[in-house]
């Protein structure tokens, strides 16, 4: 077993929402990522960084339970995740938004609410307003711009009564306001005691709080030296995981250039 993850004080008493141990995936025996060891506690936002093809999307699919890992295990709130019984505590935002172009924004959200349930205090309409699309209720999703579709998809995530968000490239297609919106949503979610794992291909934009980062190097263990003082990595070469406190936090102006698809 790897050493226990080092955590900020205030999360120690609560169980990890998500815990990965020795998590690795390969396809046709080509390693995609891993082995990875990390934990996600309530109130945390973790940024998964990596170049195109580094396995970020695949990692999120594994963590959500769509894909079985080649080795290792995932625990959600202490319970092992199995394909037979997926966890009801996860909301996934993937590249495909999961929206029907023929339906209006509100119809899409209503369906999502029917499928996953509603977060208390929210309704499809308020969620839509919460992502800055108030008044867009009856607009067919097909006519929305890529950024607006992304916002509707974010509203779907917001609406789901779950603790764990897995967001794949949430900043893609979004303008400056949109990026700030994502950050605000993530912050609120973390303050409520939720946790989020988000991916970004380098141009990250999460500026507030203390984002911890996981750097994925794909299945190529050749590059990258061991990260000094990393308590998370089983194999020092893959992956490199750093704690993203003060020194590592993104400068505020970076958010302007971030989020390019």
């Amino acid at each position, binding site marked *: 077993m790897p050493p226990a993850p080092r955590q900020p004080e205030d999360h120690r008493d609560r169980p990890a929402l998500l815990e990965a141990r020795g998590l690795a995936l390969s396809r046709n025996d080509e390693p995609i990522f891993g082995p990875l060891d990390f934990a996600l506690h309530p109130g945390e936002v973790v940024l998964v960084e990596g170049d195109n093809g580094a396995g970020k999307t695949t990692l999120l699919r594994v963590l959500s339970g*769509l894909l*079985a890992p080649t080795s290792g295990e995932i625990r959600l709130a202490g319970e092992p995740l199995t394909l037979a019984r997926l966890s009801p505590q996860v909301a996934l935002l993937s590249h495909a938004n*999961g929206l*029907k172009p023929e339906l209006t924004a509100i119809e899409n959200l209503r369906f999502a609410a029917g499928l996953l349930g509603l977060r208390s205090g929210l309704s499809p309409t308020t969620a839509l307003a919460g992502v800055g699309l108030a008044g867009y209720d009856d607009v067919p999703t097909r006519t929305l711009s890529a950024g607006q579709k992304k916002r509707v998809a974010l509203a779907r995530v917001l609406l789901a009564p779950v603790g764990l968000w897995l967001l794949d490239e949430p900043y893609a297609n979004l303008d400056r306001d949109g990026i700030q919106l994502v950050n605000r949503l993530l912050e609120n979610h973390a303050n409520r005691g939720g946790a989020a794992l988000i991916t970004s291909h380098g141009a990250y934009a999460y500026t507030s709080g203390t984002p911890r980062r996981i750097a994925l190097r794909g299945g190529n263990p050749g590059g990258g030296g061991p990260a000094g003082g990393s308590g998370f990595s089983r194999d020092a070469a893959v992956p490199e995981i750093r704690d993203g406190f003060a020194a590592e936090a993104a400068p505020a102006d970076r958010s302007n250039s971030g989020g390019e698809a």
Partner: protein
Amino acid sequence: MKPGSTLAACAALVRRDLTLVWRRRGDAANPILFALIVVALFPLALGPEPEQLRRIAAGVVFVAILLAGLLALDTLFRSDYEDGSLEQLVLSPHPLSLLLACKIAVHWLTTALPLIVVSPLLGELLHLAAPLRGLLPLALLLATPLLSLLGAVCVALTVGMHRSGMLLALLVLPLYVPVLIFGAGACNAAQAGLPFAAPLLWLGAALVLVLVLAPLACAAALRISLS
């Protein structure tokens, strides 16, 4: 109905799929047109003699509806796969097989049921024998849900492939053979004055069995192809 309950999820799914069919209602007539064209090809190929057409009428209508259903199968998961809603379905906390059963039911209602409704017309084009006018829709009513359910399992196996059309036919048709034999066989037996209840009862029994097993198999197949 509590939001988040399995019942609410099924209702939301059924409502959404019906809405989608309604929004794309232009496409809904395609299977009917296809079956009509296939049936019309037979007199053109074989000649217009009523006696000859009457002999093969039930079988031809059966095959035409089977093929139309095969073409319609592709739409079962394709758009859901492409826009990512299939993932959301799989990730929902409700039993996937139940949700899929709802999807298949809506698909059957919107593609196969209209075909059954027009089957008397198709039969009339081929001078279907009078005693079969009631029996053919009944046999179709038992057979088409079987076709939809068995087809759904195979579609789930090929979901995500770019050109799955021919492969899907290859996977599905061996499974359709018994359904076709009993469905069309019942009609032929009736036409020949033989007892025809047994094949219909077999179809009914198979339907009950497949109704339970196919959604489970479909869910398992979908999990394999989405991984």
